[in-house]
């Protein structure tokens, strides 16, 4: 427990830091509403002008609920601390962690989770309200069983995204300017996770490709648990896949970090 205390402190520091910039947090929430509004209007116009009840495998209710829920989950599981890690690698900020009895990995994860608490709390309240409204309007058929599975899948999705973030940040060991890798990875995750639109509308071929990658378990999978598109059996398989991907990503992150640390030359320290 004593060993754990320092990480709780890192968690508290992360929380304090996020509370300091409240205006930034509020504005950041507002910014995520705009793309959602645009998508709602776009698909409403498409369904309103179409003679078909179903377009690209979705009916109107499923599409709108997907867009709304996915936008919120996207915010809920977002990371973005790869820039801080890269800065530590580039400017020698890692030095203090080499000489102190603090694991850099654990420190970063706890600090990140601390900074995420306020966001998680606020976004969860918003999500609950929206789900209640959508459920009463569209009759999504949200059962306690689905809510429980959804609540399990969200932290797992956040962990997958966290490890993707750590793996992409380790590119900073080899590249002085790793911004391109981060932007590329963010775009790849955004596109393939289903954060922009349901990825299955891109066809079966693309879905088959995504079966071999962890991305669809970040947004697409939790969203389809709660909006009732996935059968219960598939949800259980999906959760096992999430755990498997976390294990794989954790091992990969450890390997990359270990190799990277051998290259680390403590510049600027």
């Amino acid at each position, binding site marked *: 427990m004593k060993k754990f205390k320092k990480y709780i402190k890192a968690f508290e520091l992360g929380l304090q830091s996020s509370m300091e*910039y409240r*205006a*930034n*947090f*509020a*504005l*950041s929430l*507002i*910014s*995520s*509403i*705009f*793309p959602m*509004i*645009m998508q709602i*209007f*776009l698909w*409403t*116009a*498409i369904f*309103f*002008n*179409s003679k078909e009840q179903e*377009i*690209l495998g979705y009916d109107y209710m499923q599409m709108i609920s997907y867009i709304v829920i996915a936008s919120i989950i996207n915010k809920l599981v977002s990371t973005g601390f790869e820039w801080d890690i890269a800065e530590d690698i580039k400017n020698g900020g890692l030095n203090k962690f080499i000489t102190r009895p603090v694991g850099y990995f654990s420190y970063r994860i706890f600090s990140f989770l601390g900074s995420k608490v306020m966001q998680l709390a606020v976004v969860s309240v918003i999500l609950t309200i929206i789900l209640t409204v959508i459920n009463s309007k569209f009759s999504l058929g949200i059962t306690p069983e689905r809510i429980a599975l959804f609540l399990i899948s969200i932290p797992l999705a956040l962990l997958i995204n966290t490890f993707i973030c750590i793996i992409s940040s380790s590119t900073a060991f080899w590249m002085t*300017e790793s911004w*391109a890798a981060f*932007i*590329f990875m963010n*775009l790849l995750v955004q*596109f393939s996770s289903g954060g*922009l*639109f349901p990825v299955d*509308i*891109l066809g079966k071929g693309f879905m088959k490709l995504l079966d071999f990658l962890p991305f669809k378990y970040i947004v697409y999978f939790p969203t389809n648990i709660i909006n009732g598109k996935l059968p219960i059996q598939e949800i259980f398989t999906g959760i096992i896949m999430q755990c498997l991907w976390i294990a794989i990503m954790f091992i990969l992150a450890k390997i990359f970090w270990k190799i990277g640390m051998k290259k680390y030359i403590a510049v600027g320290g």
Partner: protein
Amino acid sequence: MEKLKKALKTLKRYGFIYLIFVKNCLVRQMEYRANFFLSIFLESCFLGTKLVYTFLISNTNVDLNGLPSDSIFIFTGSFLLMTGFYMAFFYFNFSNIKGYVTDGSLDIFITKPVSLQFMTTLRYVDFSTMIPNFIGGIIILIVGWQKSGVEVSFVKVAGYIGYLISGVVITYSVMLAPQLLNFIIIKGYALGEIADALWDSNSMPMSIYSKPIKIIGTYVFPLFILSNFSSLFVLDKLGAVNIIWGIAAPVLFFFLVRLLWKNIIKKYSSASS
């Protein structure tokens, strides 16, 4: 007459300074060629994701509230062209404002014998983000123009270019305004996120939005002029009022953002030096 001569002389001077800015930026970007090509690659990836969505919507073969599905290519082409302009001439300048305020660079700019707004908001030109958006935008625009069966006449082409220029001036005014909040909110990244989200909300035809949003987006915070007006003009869907508004709005909003800038600078107090 004397005033006109003076204004022309000033314009010539600023034109000359701007050309030096452009030259310096080009030299700098050519020096870091790997970065330059990486940036082109990344911007092409962003462009690719936008195009995937455009093709998806076009494949539904559904009209978008009075606009044929193929016309989406004209809107996407125009949006990409405007993104090229925005990224090349304004985006990095506007994003840097926060840094100028926090690290005190703005104090140095104030001492220079050129307009502070000119120096701060037009100093950098980025070619790497411009190239893919321009190439992609022009190709998609031509495809959309042909698919929608729009005639190629002098009036259509000239009108389209005219509204694109109007869009560039509006881009400068409308996208600069939120960034000026950086003078008040010193820390954070959310203003940039809002600006990006606002920009992307213009990527689709304005016909999809409800009436109040259309009114706000056209007359109050005229985002829709950026790429929607040029597209609507060639599709003969712009309407008489908006034809005039598309010409008047850039002048009005440029004047307003100039006023806002002057007011904010008056209240600016250096914090770092």
